[in-house]
């Protein structure tokens, strides 16, 4: 059973989602605030976190940053549609995906599945691209021999792009293959993830070498 930590302050929403997720076969623990959530990450410990951004005490963005600083635990954030800017902030803080409230459990479960699928390996041997070494079996990335911790969406995006170096992927394509979103979904997911990924793998985030922007079309890996 996949263990999910739900950090949500509204008891009714938390209860409803927990009920639904348990029915879907997840083992769910609920934390009503950020502090409890961070404690739960260590104690439970979950394989995925569903995080409400509006929390009393430490807010969701800070919780997201702390979880991300500590590791690569997948994070799905719950956001309100009327706080559009929150989505970008949450994605930049390290969330892998988001679901707009009020969310049906079916939708949330689909996202959880997609995020977790992302982290599954695809076999093969280690590839070298410039200073980067990608191991598709072990799902590790290293630069200059030092391992880089990548969140599931970042890793999946890097693997997708690097599987066909030089080929241009549109944002819509990446949304479909990496996030399982509709082709015409929120492309900010892709842009925010590229931004985070560049911070981790590029020597200079400003002049990207590995993940290059093709204006008007999308992104490509290399050519190096």
């Amino acid at each position: 059973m996949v263990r999910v930590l739900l950090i949500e302050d509204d008891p009714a929403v938390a209860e409803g989602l927990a009920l639904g997720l348990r029915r879907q076969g997840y083992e769910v623990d609920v934390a009503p605030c950020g502090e409890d959530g961070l404690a739960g990450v260590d104690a439970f410990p979950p394989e995925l976190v569903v995080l409400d951004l509006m929390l009393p005490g430490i807010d969701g963005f800070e919780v997201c940053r702390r979880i991300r600083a500590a590791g690569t635990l997948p994070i799905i954030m719950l956001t309100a549609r009327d706080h559009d800017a929150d989505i970008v902030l949450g994605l930049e803080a390290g969330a892998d995906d988001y679901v707009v409230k009020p969310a049906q459990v079916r939708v949330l479960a689909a996202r959880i599945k997609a995020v977790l699928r992302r982290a599954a390996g695809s076999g093969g041997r280690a590839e070298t691209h410039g200073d980067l070494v990608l191991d598709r079996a072990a799902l590790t990335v290293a630069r200059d021999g030092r391992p880089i911790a990548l969140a599931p969406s970042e890793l999946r995006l890097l693997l997708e792009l690097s599987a066909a170096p030089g080929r241009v992927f549109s944002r819509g394509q990446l949304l479909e293959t990496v996030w399982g979103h509709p082709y015409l979904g929120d492309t900010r997911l892709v842009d925010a993830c590229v931004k985070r990924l560049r911070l981790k793998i590029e020597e200079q985030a400003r002049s990207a070498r590995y993940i290059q922007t093709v204006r008007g079309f999308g992104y490509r890996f290399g050519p190096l």
Partner: protein
Amino acid sequence: MTGPTATASEASADSTSAAPRGAAARLRRLGGLRLRLVAAFVLVAAFASLVTAALTYREARAGLLQRSQDRIVGDLRTGVDAIAPSIPFPPDQAALDSVARDIDKQGRARGSIVIVVYRDLRAESGMRTGGIDIPPPLRAAVTQRTATVFQRFRHGGEVWLAVGVPITFVNQGPSGVQVYLLAPMRAEAQDEASLVKAARRGAVPAVLFALIPAFLAAAGVLRPVRALQDATRRLARGRLDTRLKAKGASELADLARDFNHTAAALEQNVAQLRTMEARARGFAADVSHELRTPLAAMAAVTDLLDEDAAAGHVDADTASALRLISTETGKLTRLVDDLMEICRFDAGAATLHLDEFDIAEAVRRCLDHRGWQNAMTLELPVGIRVEADPRRFDVVVANLVQNALRHGAPPIGIRLTLENGADGTWILLRVHDRGPGIAADRLDRVFERFYKADAARTRSEGSGLGMAITRENVLLHGGRIHAANRPDGGAEFTVELPQRAHHARQDPE
């Protein structure tokens, strides 16, 4: 594609009619306040100076004639008085000649003729030209009376003065000797001419000088009028804080004050309305916001209800009730979602996240994603790319197709064309159906919120906000949307989007 040509012909028609329209405006200007004021001033000045000149002329002329007449008459009498005692009685022709000569010598009146008469004797001095003679009425008057008589008469186009003086004996009545003087009034006529000239010389500059105060006065009146005009136009453009300077107590200052009062009242009313509107919008946003939290909890468990209703764990009535709750919760969720979306548009908080994509592919993906790809006729040329917000584009296409599915009849067609206008390339996406169409008087109402095309249906399956949201999304892109009926039946919605978004593109980097 009739669009661009129609626009072009309209544009050219505009440009050709622009020049005559400008000339007409100038003509109207000529009949404006300034011209009328100046004309009135000039007319008044001309009238006043003409009347003054005429009166002056009349008075001066009368005085002038009187004076020279008096002088001539006086001179003659003095002369006659001086020589009368030396006249022998009864006088002979020689005596009469001598009298005539003596008086003529005194003759101050140049060109004058002296005639001395005694019964049938007659003496003359001076040149008698053109048959000029003593006017018979004068002669009769002199014969009858003993006083000096004079008369003005015209002869040969000139004014003459005829004076008759009878010589009398002291206490013995008339002697029968009569002295006449015929004097031309040429000099006086010349004086008259110079008077007319002087009046003309005075009046014309006076009228010209009147132009200066006329223009000054016109400017004085026109300046506030123009200020009022400018202020009114600013007000019409929505600058409700426009005020005029109102100095003094003139009617124009009163008008300016009235304008200021009106503008202030308008500004206050508009501010009040805006506050009320903002409050109403804020209320709608707050309500949706408050509804969302309990809905979030309910929406989380609807799947659970559906499963149990389907699984047969519960009796039929309970299963129906569960399904009802689940369905209605879903509708309520969509309604609240749509309400919040509309509130975001109203608050101006809706933002574009632009990307470039292939329209044909985007439309196909949108239909596939919703399982609508059947029963569609698609005319989607590949390779047409657009710069737009993909999520919002998806909403537009989905809402239009859903609307066609709901209110129209299959087959539903989607046609994509490109159009080159003066303001860049536009993408035209038409969604049409084979349904009954839309009543002509309701065509522009279909984008209204909660508008129901069919009045009998109190409840639609959608939130009632779909088309309003579609329209807002199109407008946010700087595009246009309109509804029409096809000549061969069915409704057609046309979305026009600029191929390049008008908004500054936010680079994702």
